[in-house]
């Protein structure tokens, strides 16, 4: 699905990502964890070119992202993204948030887009809120709408950038439940998270980043029970 080779990213003189090579297979759920400042969000944002990598290749479905500058929009349409701070469009209702891009970008008919949006809202448990504006929703509800908005574009890959970090503790579960449900449905997902429970339970693979280096990757049971590197062991001791 997505192949990353020798990815580097620098901001000025500061090298944030150093030589990252990895792969996400179709249907896989990959958790990206690591201390803050380790470059995990930057890595995720490189995957849909919100950050332009300094060098390296990113192949999605055989197409090199770095070479096809013109097709950025096309590629981004296939990749959904969920942000820490939701970034819903505040001047649009929940339903309009979901239907705007499918109508504008994919040229879907309004009635079709709305029908699909209602199905998605039902899936995230927010059907009664379709006419509400984002400002009247709780954090957990906003994030569920944001997930539905990304899904409305029918992406092949979903990126989650710390989706629960800005939520009150009692709202984390409702968002994680939606994500678990999504993982079960076979969606390919890359999730930057501090929720070790989610990484352990739901992920097929864990990537551990530290200081911009992909230090360790593997299946979650092995990683959490038997980390191979000292750095991963240190980190896990602090967070678990």
């Amino acid at each position, binding site marked *: 699905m997505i192949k990353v080779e020798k990815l580097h990213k620098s901001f000025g003189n500061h090298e944030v990502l150093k030589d990252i090579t990895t792969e996400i297979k179709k249907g896989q759920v990959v958790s990206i964890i690591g201390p803050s400042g380790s470059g995990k969000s930057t890595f995720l944002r490189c995957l*849909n070119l*919100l950050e332009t990598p300094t060098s390296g290749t990113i192949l999605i479905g055989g197409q090199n992202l770095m070479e096809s500058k013109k097709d950025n*929009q*096309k*590629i*981004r*349409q296939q*990749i*959904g*993204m969920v*942000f820490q*701070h939701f*970034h*819903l*469009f*505040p*001047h*649009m209702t929940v339903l309009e948030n979901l239907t*705007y*891009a499918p109508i*504008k*970008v994919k040229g879907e008919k309004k009635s079709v887009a709305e029908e699909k949006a209602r199905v998605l809202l039902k899936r995230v448990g927010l059907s009664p809120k379709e006419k509400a*504006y*984002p*400002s009247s929703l709780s954090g957990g509800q906003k994030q569920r709408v944001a997930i539905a*908005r*990304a899904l409305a*574009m029918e992406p092949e890959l979903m990126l989650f950038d710390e989706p629960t970090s800005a939520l009150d503790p009692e709202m984390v579960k409702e968002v994680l439940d939606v994500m678990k449900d999504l993982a079960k449905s076979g969606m390919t997902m890359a999730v930057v998270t501090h929720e070790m429970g989610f990484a352990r339970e739901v992920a097929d693979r864990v990537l551990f980043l530290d200081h911009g280096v992909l230090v360790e990757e593997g299946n979650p049971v092995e990683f959490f029970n038997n980390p191979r590197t000292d750095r991963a062991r240190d980190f896990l001791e602090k967070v678990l």
Partner: protein
Amino acid sequence: MNLDFSQMVPYIPFMLEGIWVTLKFVFFAIILGAIFGTLLALCKISHIKPLRWAADAYTSVFRGTPLILQLMIIYYAVPQLTGYDIDAFLAAILAFGLNSSAYISEIIRAGIQAVDKGQMEAAHALGIPYRAMMKDIILPQALKNILPALMNEFITLTKESAIVSTIGYLDLMRRAQVVGADLFRNFEPLLFVGVIYWCLVMGLTVIGRMFERRLKKSD
């Protein structure tokens, strides 16, 4: 006290006609200023350096010189260069529209930059093209924040429009002067058009408030 409004009565229709004359060119100047100001603002936040540079230079010139000077250059000096005998109406629209666009572009630029950066990222992530993103997502949010500043600019423009009286354009202000000269009484006609200007500005204020309320419905 030497005040006699009765002598002014026959001139009232003449002065009232000035409302229409003033509103006509103010309306077009606001439209020109708003459209051109928006384009300038987009240039100012663009990644293309020459565009940014040109827009900044434009603003610096039109904000850095008196409006009355710009008006006089357009009305009196440009015909000398081009041979085209510009009429007062067009000169007024151009001078006020071009001048106002410099101020409006600054207001809009600030408004766009105040919109949360995440909004642009969300739009990028959904594959929304630049034009649609600006038109449907960024500018509507910017507009909500800058509406009071924008109304202020329109009010200023409406009042400062009195400057066109200096090129002989028969607006409200000019008509008051004409009547004053005719009657040898200035206080009454000046007071009369003063009240009219105030009413116009109050009208604008009410329209602005209505707009603001409509944009606030998503709060």
